[in-house]
């Protein structure tokens, strides 16, 4: 049974791997409207693949928002109705000179 403690240990590992994943896909790039679709799709797919490889019995939801830097503000909030002992989430923020990227990972346990 996946316990809260093991989830949070793997959350900190996930944060690092998600950051590396973002860096490898858009690290050197500038915001471009015609490619941003592909980037977000690649980021969520790679992040999901990384998490699934950990082979813990969880369902995952990964969401990614990429925004051009223009001086505007952005806020993200989430509210979850789940079992706080076994389920958890983490959010990763990344930026470069031209854009921001926010990736949220939610993990929902499978067996009680």
């Amino acid at each position, binding site marked *: 049974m996946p316990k809260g403690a093991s989830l949070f240990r793997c959350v900190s590992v996930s944060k690092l791997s998600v950051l590396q994943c973002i860096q490898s896909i858009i690290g050197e790039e500038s915001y471009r409207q015609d490619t941003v679709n592909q980037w977000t799709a690649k980021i969520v797919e790679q992040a999901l693949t990384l998490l699934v490889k950990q082979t813990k019995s969880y369902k995952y939801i990964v969401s990614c928002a990429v925004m051009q830097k223009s001086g*505007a503000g952005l806020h993200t909030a989430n509210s*979850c109705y789940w079992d706080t002992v076994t389920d958890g989430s983490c959010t990763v923020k990344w930026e470069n000179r031209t854009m921001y990227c926010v990736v949220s990972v939610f993990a929902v346990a499978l067996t009680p």
Partner: protein
Amino acid sequence: MEGTDTGGNTYLIRPNYHHKFKAAVVKECIHDILREQLSGVQYDPDEVGVLSRSLADCIKDKLKDVGFDRYKLVVQVVIGEQRGEGVKMAARCFWDADTDSYAQDIFMNDSLFCVAAAFGSYFY
């Protein structure tokens, strides 16, 4: 057989049709809440953090009342200022496509845009 014992297993691998997470119903709920709470609201950097949190809680509570028993819910709300910038949001889920689903809606006015997504995951 279901509903009374909310903590343990029910050994039902599929919800019946009435208890399924219906994306259309959820989208309607989200749409109503966003329209009601954000019409006429201007982007204010001090308040919008609290606003997005309260929107997420409000949507989650509304969905609980609609009555998706045996579903775990995740609601994500993103609010940003409108300055003509480009934004793209994507999500991928690793779940059971027969039982789990999501719904999303977007609200825009002159000064802000808001994206709300609700994900439902069946608890077997």
